[in-house]
């Protein structure tokens, strides 16, 4: 009998985050609804389960962890708060009308962020993936760089939004059509198509982008991103600008992690300084979440049996002797004691326990 992959992952992640000095953040299941209404767009789904508590306040079942954590931290010059969590959140599953309880682990690093803190979070994201599955990728983008490159292209506001979503969908054909529609120069088109098409090894992607950059804003963001990528050279990271499509909250790096065998990203995060600004705060913040519910998929390679041993006990068997026998057998594996074989479970080995003691089934 093995521990399920998602359960293993929770233990392993918790250990990892503690190793790097992150303390656990435990929160109540409820939060004032107001917090979510004000920051609706930050949520993955804006549908929230609400109810009125006995004092008449409108509460919500947490659809998200990050907002609560930010609310409960304070700005301190030069200080950084590092927390991790492992919580259940309530969201509407995509394409359905019903709420789902989703297990989520993750961490947030809030405060006076410098290059080190950002690199540490990215490294922890990469290590988190490594703990869950052997074959994984961490895709990185930089919203500051993407925003600067879009700005340099003389796109209309509406065009910018469209361009971002075409980059997100890797639709070079739609992007080209948009460039024609917006009357962009060849150079601008080249720049946007590079964001759409370039993906893979960090060095190669950066080398391909560099000659296309002109403005100070672009170059500054590029420098920041390149420096980060260089620090993370040892990790399994790739660059891919389809990762982020939200310029409203995310300002710096954004990233998504994938594990072979799971059809959607299992890890998602980024630097969301703009959210804090919106909440009237001075700090910066970066964090990520791991969607543990998706890891259930990895449990599919199930063992051929549920427990190692089924021990069938006879009615009049001596209980004290049976307990001793079970303890002995547990050295070989898990033991289920039952009077009759359960219908829906499978075992590696079946033994009997009679008045005379242990016998082979």
């Amino acid at each position, binding site marked *: 009998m093995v521990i399920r992959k998602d359960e293993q992952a929770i233990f392993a992640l918790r250990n990892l985050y503690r190793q790097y000095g992150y303390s656990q953040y435990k929160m109540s299941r409820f939060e004032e609804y107001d917090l979510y209404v004000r920051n609706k767009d930050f949520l993955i789904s804006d549908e929230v389960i609400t109810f009125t508590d006995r004092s008449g306040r409108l509460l919500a079942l947490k659809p998200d962890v990050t907002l609560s954590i930010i609310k409960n931290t304070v700005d301190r010059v030069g200080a950084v708060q590092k927390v991790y969590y492992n919580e259940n959140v309530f969201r509407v599953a995509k*394409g359905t009308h019903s709420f789902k309880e989703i297990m989520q682990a993750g961490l947030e690093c809030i405060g006076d962020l410098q290059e080190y803190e950002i690199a540490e979070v990215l490294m922890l994201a990469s290590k988190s993936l490594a703990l869950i599955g052997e074959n994984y*990728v961490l895709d990185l983008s930089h919203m500051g760089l993407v925003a600067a490159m879009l700005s340099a292209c003389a796109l209309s506001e509406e065009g910018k939004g469209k361009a971002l979503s075409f980059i997100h*969908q890797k*639709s070079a054909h739609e992007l080209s059509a948009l460039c024609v529609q917006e009357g962009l120069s060849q150079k601008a088109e080249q720049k946007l198509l590079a964001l759409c098409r370039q993906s893979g090894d960090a060095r190669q992607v950066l080398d391909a982008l560099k000659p296309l950059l002109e403005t100070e804003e672009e170059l500054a963001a590029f420098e920041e991103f390149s420096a980060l990528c260089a620090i993370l050279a040892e990790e399994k990271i790739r660059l891919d600008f*389809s990762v982020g499509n939200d310029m409203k909250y995310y300002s710096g790096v954004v990233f998504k992690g*994938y594990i072979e065998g*799971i059809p*959607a990203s299992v890890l998602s995060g980024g630097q969301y300084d703009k959210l804090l600004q919106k909440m009237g705060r001075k700090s910066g913040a970066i964090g990520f979440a791991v969607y543990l519910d998706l890891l259930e998929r990895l449990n599919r390679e199930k063992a051929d049996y549920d427990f190692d041993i089924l021990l069938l006990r006879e009615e009049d068997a001596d209980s004290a002797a049976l307990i001793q026998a079970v303890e002995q057998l547990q050295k070989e594996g898990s033991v289920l004691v039952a009077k009759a074989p359960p219908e829906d479970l499978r075992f590696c080995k079946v033994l009997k326990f009679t008045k005379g003691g242990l016998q082979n089934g």
Partner: protein
Amino acid sequence: MDKMVNVALPKGRLGEKVYKLFKEAGFECPSIEEQNRKLIFENPEKGVRYFWVKPSDVAIYVERGAADIGVCGKDILLEYRPDVYELLDLKMGKCRMAVAAKKEFRDPRGETLRVATKFPNIAATYYNEKCRDIDIIKLNGSIEIAPILGLSDVIVDIVETGKTLLENDLVPFETIVPISARLIANTAGYKFKQEAIEAIKKGLEKQIND
């Protein structure tokens, strides 16, 4: 781990044309052309496995990772907005999403416009952008009959040649968006089979442009 690229093809005439394009691009699978009742066809040499599914289900198979790539109409992508990559316009199955109504139709500006459609999201987005107040009537087929019976003022539907509309005395008034078949990919699958998927995409692209 399975290294073959799983391809969901839309059942029907368009699907057959699409398979031909894959074949010409060098990803043939002889067993698919045999007359039999099999549902899944593979060519391990080329690293591809094809299966036929209902056209409107292709995006679901791809989004949920049962297929790594697939071919589906832009109408489905706009209506259901699956989280997939849209890698290529195959430039086949061309048609357009349009607003149609009876010949004598004049937009009743002072009233809510009643719109019958199979594509409520596309219709809603289109009229939202125009700040037009509408009442969407979601139908599952025979949309053309709605304005004739007075169920709706206009319809939003796919127009290919316009023949069906004409036979029912309807006229396409505005084009919302051109539609054609697109090559889509599962976002996670793309990460682990990028080389193979890009090779297929390049092969198809070459065929389209030639």
